[in-house]
C-alpha cells in the first residue's frame, strides 16, 4: 500500500532526508511541558528514535528518526504518556507564548492561559495555508509577536491616581515613550504617546498608577521565505471576548480571500489593507 506522506505530515510526522524516517512533531502550547511529559518524550526518543530530540524555532519538540513501521506504536505510547502529536500543513500551527505575568515580573498579561485558549479554539483548523499565533506578555516582546500571522502583545491601560501619588518622579523617568510629564502638583499623561508598556505602573513605588491588562494585536507577520512585520491596526483591546471576535474575523478574512498556499500577508496585500482594517475594526466594535 502506498504511504500517504501528506496525511502523515498533517499529523506531525515530517519526512526526513533519510528514507522511511520521520521527525515526529509534538503538540506544545506556549512552550510549556510538564516534567512527566518530558520523561515520556525521552523514553520514546530512546526506544524508537536515536535518543535525541530537536527543539524547533517555535517552541515545539520533534523526535527525529522515527521509523515508518513504528508510527502507530509511537502515537499510542505518547498518548498514554500525556503527549499529543502536532500538526503541519495548511492549518493553525503551534501557539507560542513567553512565560508572561504568571512568572515574569515584566508581564502584563497571563500569556499561558491565553495561548491555551487560542490553541483550544483554533489549533489544527484547516485554512488556505499555515497560520501562526504568538503571544508575548509585554513590550519587551521576547516572543516576537509581529513575526506571526496574528501576534498578541500584552499591555496596560494606565490611569494616574492623584491621591496615592507623592510626585517622586520615578514613573516619568521609567516611561520610554515620553508620554509622561511632571508639573508642580501632578503627573501628566499624553495618551497619544502612551504605548501601553506599563512601565509607569510597574515602577511606581506608591501604587499611584492603575494598570489594567489589555491586548495589542498585529496582523500579517511572516518570517519565512518572505519577511514582513505584522501591523498593529487596532487600539488596545480590553477583553478576551473582543480579542476572539477580532481573531475570528482575521481567520475568516484569510479563509475567504487567500489562495491555497498563500499567507495572510499576501492575501491582505492583494485585497487591500484598508479593506482588511475595516473588517477588523468592525469586529473590534462588535
Amino acid at each position, binding site marked *: 500500500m502506498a504511504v500517504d506522506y501528506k496525511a502523515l505530515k498533517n499529523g506531525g510526522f515530517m519526512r526526513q532526508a533519510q528514507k522511511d524516517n520521520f521527525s515526529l512533531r509534538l503538540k506544545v502550547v506556549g512552550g510549556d511541558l510538564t516534567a512527566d511529559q518530558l520523561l515520556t518524550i525521552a523514553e520514546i526518543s530512546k526506544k524508537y528514535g536515536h535518543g535525541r530530540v530537536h527543539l524547533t524555532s517555535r517552541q515545539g519538540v520533534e523526535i527525529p528518526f522515527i521509523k515508518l513501521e513504528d508510527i502507530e506504536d509511537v502515537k499510542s505510547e505518547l498518548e498514554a504518556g500525556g503527549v499529543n502529536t502536532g500538526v503541519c500543513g495548511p492549518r493553525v500551527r503551534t501557539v507560542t507564548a513567553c512565560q508572561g505575568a504568571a512568572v515574569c515580573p515584566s508581564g502584563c498579561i497571563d500569556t499561558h492561559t491565553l495561548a491555551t485558549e487560542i490553541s483550544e479554539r483554533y489549533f489544527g483548523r484547516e485554512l488556505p495555508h499555515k497560520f501562526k499565533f504568538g503571544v508575548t506578555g509585554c513590550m519587551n516582546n521576547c516572543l516576537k509577536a509581529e513575526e506571526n500571522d496574528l501576534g498578541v502583545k500584552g499591555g496596560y491601560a494606565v490611569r494616574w491616581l492623584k491621591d496615592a501619588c*507623592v510626585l*517622586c518622579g*520615578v514613573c516619568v*523617568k*521609567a516611561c*520610554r515613550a515620553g508620554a509622561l510629564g511632571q508639573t508642580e502638583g501632578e503627573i501628566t499623561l499624553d495618551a497619544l504617546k502612551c504605548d501601553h508598556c506599563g512601565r509607569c505602573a*510597574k*515602577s511606581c*513605588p506608591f501604587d499611584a498608577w492603575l494598570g489594567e491588562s489589555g491586548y495589542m494585536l498585529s496582523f500579517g507577520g511572516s518570517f519565512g521565505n518572505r519577511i514582513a512585520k505584522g501591523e498593529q491596526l487596532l487600539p488596545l483591546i480590553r477583553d478576551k471576548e473582543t480579542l476572539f471576535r477580532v481573531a475570528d474575523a482575521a481567520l475568516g478574512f484569510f479563509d475567504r480571500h487567500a489562495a491555497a498556499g498563500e499567507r495572510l500577508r499576501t492575501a491582505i496585500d492583494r485585497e487591500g489593507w484598508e479593506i482588511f482594517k475595516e473588517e477588523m475594526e468592525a469586529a473590534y466594535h462588535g
Partner: protein
Amino acid sequence: MADLTIDKTLDITDAVCPMTFVQVKVALEEMDDGQTLSIRMNDGEPVQNIPRSLKVEGHKVLKLTDGGDGAYELVVRKAGG
C-alpha cells in the same frame, strides 16, 4: 518626606548595568530592615530601571530627586521596616 533620615549613601554613577543593581543589592544586604539608603545614579538606564527592580525585590522607594547635574538621588527603605 523632607526630613528623611539617611542611614547609608551609595554612588553608582561610575558603574554600568548589571553592576549598578548588584552594588545596590550588596549595600542593602549589609543594612538592617527599615533603614534607608540614598543612591546616586546616572540619568538614563539606571534611573529607568533601578526603582522598578527595587520594587520587585520588595523594598520601598521613598523619593527620587533630580540633582540637575545629570545624576539622580534615589532614597529607598530596606524591606521589612
